[in-house]
């Protein structure tokens, strides 16, 4: 998995951009589509998931030699479920309104494949420092992606951002954007943008390589 040439900073950066869990790996789509109807919900969900991801990565990598592989999945789920329950109580204590808005999706962080995926594919094979950086990067990348969706959907769907009205009264809200279908539209738009950027970069590299090869041939 992690090669020795990779620094801990690389482990952090990759989750933010190159291997962004939502835009590149397309993981954990259920909360991404469901609670990104406003920027504040999206940010809260993103941060809650990031917290669980970082904590479970730390614990799993700390205990990686203690956990026999036969029971590893069950143990990871146990660890993840614990942190999700903690987050659940803490959000209730911070704001009941936020808790109501996020609803069942907080509990469903347990089954977010991103978290179990990182525990299994990364934290169980790497040191605590690397796993923490990986969790931080992936978690922030996930929160960032949710915020991207939430901001677009809230601006177009309710004409506001973080609850602050942006437009004059005459702005006609695109109600569809805050409905589930709006989630798919927005996600499709972002994926289009990311893939277009990736393709453009690949083309550039290819043409650069061709020019180099051509020069070498001459």
């Amino acid at each position, binding site marked *: 998995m992690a090669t020795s040439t990779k620094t801990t900073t690389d482990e952090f950066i990759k989750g933010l951009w190159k291997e962004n869990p939502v835009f590149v790996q397309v993981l954990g789509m259920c909360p991404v589509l469901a609670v990104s*109807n406003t920027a504040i919900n999206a940010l809260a969900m993103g941060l809650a998931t990031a917290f669980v991801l970082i904590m479970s990565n730390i614990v799993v990598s700390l*205990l990686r030699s*203690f*956990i*026999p*592989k*036969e*029971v590893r999945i*069950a*143990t990871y789920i*146990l*660890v993840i*479920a*614990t942190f999700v*329950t*903690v987050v659940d*109580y*803490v959000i*209730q*204590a911070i*704001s*009941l309104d936020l808790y*109501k808005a996020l*609803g069942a999706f907080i509990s469903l962080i347990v089954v977010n494949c991103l978290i179990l995926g990182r525990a299994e594919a990364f934290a169980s094979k790497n040191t605590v420092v690397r796993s923490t950086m990986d969790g931080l990067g992936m978690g922030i990348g996930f929160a960032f992606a949710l915020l991207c969706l939430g901001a677009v959907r809230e601006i177009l*769907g*309710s004409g506001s951002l973080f609850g602050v009205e942006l437009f004059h009264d005459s702005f006609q*809200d695109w*109600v569809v954007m*805050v*409905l589930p279908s709006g989630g798919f539209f927005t996600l499709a738009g972002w994926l289009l943008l990311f893939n277009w950027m990736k393709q453009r970069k690949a083309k550039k590299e290819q043409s650069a390589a061709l020019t180099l090869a051509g020069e070498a041939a001459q």
Partner: protein
Amino acid sequence: MVPADRVRDEEQGGIDVSNAELSAGAPPTSTWHMYRAMVGIGVCCGLLIVSVYQVTLPVIERNKAEALQAAIFDVLPGAVTSTTYRLQEPDGFQVSEGKDAGEQLVYAGYDDEHALVGIAVEAHGMGYQDVIRLIYGYSFENDAIVGIRVLESKETPGLGDRIETDPDFLENFKRLDVSLTDDQTTLANAIVPVKHGEKTHPWQVDGITGATISSKAIANILDQSAEFWVPRMHAKRADFEGQE
């Protein structure tokens, strides 16, 4: 802890066979190690959950109480203090101190001169997506519902959730008639939903175009709840007075 022969049995059993590829030649883990890992982590997780629960419980309770208090004052304009009563049939209403499950509670609101403003009642019923929970204020003076607030709903954002925000719809509940028949046992007129713009009587609820089911649900929840509570509260009005 575990008898040796049982350990051997389990090692030869299903767990190791199903994980044969994972083990990939490595010696099988002893059952004791598996127990140790799962039980040990389980106990630690349990302790963590219990301690977080204990720490956050008072804050959560306070948040809930504050939210309820704010909702009571919201639906009873002019109220500054409130007292909780429980229904004790057939005697009437008594001040409720503790919080026993299954009790039927109402909240009496009083103004700054300790005069009774009205009673806030919680009600719930089926909406479009899920159960809608709301609280409404009943005023004896007006024989009317004088305010409602939705406490919990999962109505469609942008459509059904306008039951909480639509100004025309909320206008219905500034004074929604729930006067009783002459014998004081039932509502003179049931609360009925009508199409938007067709409201002609003070007991009708003017619906929202695009949120027909949700706005009808509100009218039906209010009708059922008022049918039960208003005659009882009316008959025992004296129970609420002179307490504060």
